[in-house]
């Protein structure tokens, strides 16, 4: 594109306020042209967000711009006064953030929050403003805006909140839109809608969009040009197509390679059932009134039936709140089922008492989503891993336990001496490995993996998944793999169960489900998954 750039960043550097020598950003430079979507890609901590904040002069107190300039229509924003800056923010350059819920003022109506921008930058009277706002809300696709204009953020769904954010950003017809991870917190289907929205807006309004994301899929789908950020630098800048076909830097290559391969599927052979769930129901009571009588039930899981064979992986797919996690907890006997049967090796788990359950616990283990909160920060890795062995009375001497731990650590590709460290000394990926080691410590037959990779960066995610598969081959352990990310399923799961509103809508062999989805919801999900080509 040869269009004049509306906003151009010239070798921008940002450092810590008190120790400005070690830089957070080093000589960042790029241009934004109208109607173009420029994607800034990088893994967490690469400095994407800092860039955007620096451009808006919204850096947190700890950080400070050490050099460089931001030219907006030819004039340097850094040399503008704070007052002039307020005139630019939201009016000429607008911004949307990752977590829409926290980014909206919880105690103000969304209408007021949009109106605020208008009040600041336009001369419209209140009537005109209201009209304008309703228009905006329609444009961003918020159903029945006349009513919702007086709602509070928490009354809206995540997608709707993000739409409101966009509405705020667009309120004063800005020339530049900075979108900082606008879809990370959203389910795939919503993500697709939002991205499409941004896409269309940039086209219709000749909007220059700076899209900050870590999801290559998203980039592929929406961006025109790509800048790859790595440790505070832009190491490669290319037009989208060229970037994906032959990336220059090998870091870029790793990024692309780390995207899960979605062409090959694991073929599954029917095996005898290890776990079988019949018509599982988990309902939570809703209390009300002076005497707290139960007046209604939240049906988290409403009649789920599935079986899982030895050494098999069953992926339980669904969007947030569909009850997949609750299912997992019920199988672990952490939540008490309302009805139904969970049979494991002939024992009906949900009827067992705490003590009767105890011996079975070593057979079923779990890996949690958040690698940061899933380990007690005050225990060494050794004690974290051996905790299960002790409580489940594997009858090992301390030395034997330690040996076992070492062995496990090696199995999950960590160093033996790591056992004396504390969790917060490890990266997310490493922690997830420790969590796996902990699960394996009591050599279980079934591990329930609750979104084990969704908090990880793409590259580490791939590694963890590979590890899990290896272990399955070695130990013949079965996984119930709970996830919202369809893209990782093909190479991972033998069979897939798609869950919606507490029910399983479709259950079958991975290939079948992903290639010829029967249920409309499954199809919708698949459509939403960003494709690389």
């Amino acid at each position, binding site marked *: 594109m040869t269009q004049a750039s509306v906003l151009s960043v010239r070798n921008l550097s940002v450092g810590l306020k008190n120790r400005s020598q070690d830089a957070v950003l080093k000589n960042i430079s790029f241009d934004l042209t109208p109607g173009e979507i420029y994607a800034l890609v990088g893994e967490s901590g690469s400095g994407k967000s800092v860039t955007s904040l620096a451009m808006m002069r*919204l850096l947190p107190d700890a950080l400070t711009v050490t050099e460089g300039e931001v030219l907006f229509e030819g004039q340097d924003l850094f040399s503008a006064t704070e007052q002039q800056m307020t005139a630019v923010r939201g009016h000429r350059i607008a911004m949307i953030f990752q977590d829409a819920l926290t980014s909206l*003022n919880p105690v103000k109506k969304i209408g007021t929050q949009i109106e605020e921008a208008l009040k600041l930058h336009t001369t419209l009277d209140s009537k005109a403003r209201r009209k304008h706002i309703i228009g905006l809300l329609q444009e961003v696709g918020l159903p029945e805006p006349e009513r919702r204009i007086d709602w*509070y953020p928490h009354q809206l769904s995540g997608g709707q909140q993000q739409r409101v954010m966009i509405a705020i950003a667009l309120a004063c017809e800005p020339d530049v839109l900075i979108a900082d991870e606008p879809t990370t917190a959203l389910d795939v289907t919503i993500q697709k809608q939002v991205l499409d929205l941004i896409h269309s807006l940039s086209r219709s309004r000749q909007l220059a969009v700076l899209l900050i994301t870590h999801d290559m899929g998203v980039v592929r789908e929406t961006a025109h040009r790509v800048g790859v950020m790595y440790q505070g630098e832009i190491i490669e800048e290319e037009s989208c197509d060229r970037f994906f076909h032959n990336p220059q830097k090998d870091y870029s290559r790793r990024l692309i390679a780390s995207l899960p391969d979605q062409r090959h599927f694991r073929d599954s052979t029917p095996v005898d059932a290890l776990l079988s769930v019949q018509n599982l129901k988990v309902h939570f009571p809703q209390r009300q009134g002076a005497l707290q009588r139960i007046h209604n039930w939240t049906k988290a899981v409403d009649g789920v039936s599935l079986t899982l064979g030895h050494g098999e992986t069953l992926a339980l797919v669904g969007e947030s709140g569909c009850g997949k996690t609750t299912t997992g907890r019920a199988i672990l006997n952490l939540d008490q089922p309302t009805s139904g049967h969970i049979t494991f090796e002939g024992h009906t788990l949900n009827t067992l008492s705490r003590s009767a359950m105890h011996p079975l616990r070593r057979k079923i283990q779990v890996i949690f989503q958040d690698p940061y909160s899933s380990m007690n920060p005050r225990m060494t890795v050794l004690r974290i891993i051996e905790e299960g062995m002790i409580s489940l009375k594997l009858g090992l001497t301390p030395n034997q336990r330690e040996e076992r731990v070492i062995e496990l650590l090696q199995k999950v590709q960590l160093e033996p001496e790591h056992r004396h460290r504390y969790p917060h000394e490890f990266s997310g990926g490493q922690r997830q490995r420790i969590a796996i080691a902990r699960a394996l410590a009591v050599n279980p037959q079934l591990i329930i993996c609750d979104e084990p990779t969704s908090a990880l960066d793409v590259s580490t995610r791939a590694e963890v998944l590979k590890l899990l598969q290896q272990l399955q081959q070695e130990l013949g352990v079965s996984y119930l793999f709970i996830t919202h990310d369809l893209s990782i399923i093909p190479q991972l799961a033998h069979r897939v169960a798609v869950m919606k509103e507490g029910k399983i809508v479709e259950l079958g062999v991975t290939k079948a489900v992903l290639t010829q989805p029967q249920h409309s919801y499954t199809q919708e999900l698949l459509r939403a998954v960003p494709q690389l080509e």
Partner: protein
Amino acid sequence: MFAYIIRRLLYAIPILVGVNLITFVLFFVVNSPEDVARAHLGEKYVTPQAIENWVHEKGYNHPLMYNADADGLNRITDTIFYQKSLKLFTLDFGQADDGRDIATDVLTRMGPSLALAIPTFVIGIWINICVALIVVMFRATHLDKAAVALFVSLMSISGLFYIIGGQYMVATLWRLVPISGFEPGAMAWKFLILPVVIGVISGIGLGARWYRTLFLETVDQDFVRTARAKGVSELGVLFHHVLPNALLPILTGVVVVIPSLFMGSLLMEAFFGIPGLGSYMLDAIRAQDFAIVRTMVFVGSVLYILGLILTDISYTMADPRVRLN
């Protein structure tokens, strides 16, 4: 919401019973009614007969908690605890041990207490918030540091020194206001202004510092960043985004004490000779007047519980996310 309040009120009953039980035990675990009688009869020529009469008249001639030689329900009802403490639920406070009607005393003394407490409270909060906002405006600057240092020093000074010093300088040295006393009506401000000012000043350290931290927490939140990205100016951010949200935690701390204002401030009333409930309590405790103490404790806890309920209600009003149940 209504149902909620009902539930809270129901929940209050066992609490109040417990409160009564505690005070009751406190008083009668070591004191026998005879002791109380002696404490209230005169100095000279006290006969056993007189004590006997006093105890009988005051109705202390029952067993404390359980009446063995009564039968049926009377075993419970025919005791001091039932007749003295549980009667309070009917808001029948009875008479003080010196024969005066407690309800009237409480009512008459409430006025001065409030006259002192409410201004101190309102002005105090207002000033604290203003100061805190200013400081937050200059966060991460030397002004901020200096202010915090000032706050901490202020709150490190015992309230006694504020009162003693203030009274000495303003009233004794400079003769700007009466040293102590109270006149109801138009003259009142003359006596109240000094205690109020002192009360406010002595509160600034703690209050402003607390509000500052609350504001700072809010300032770092995403929606504030959003507001800035919208182009809202610093002041706008503070007043339209930070303040309303920071008010929520402030509510919890503040609303709960509002009813307790009725109880008056012990020190202030003692030092400035204001005939409020604070000094009333003090005298009662010193005179071991169980009748008054149990009443004040009862009233106090009722007000406290009221405060809790008020807090929740005010919360639902301030924060659309909160629903009572």
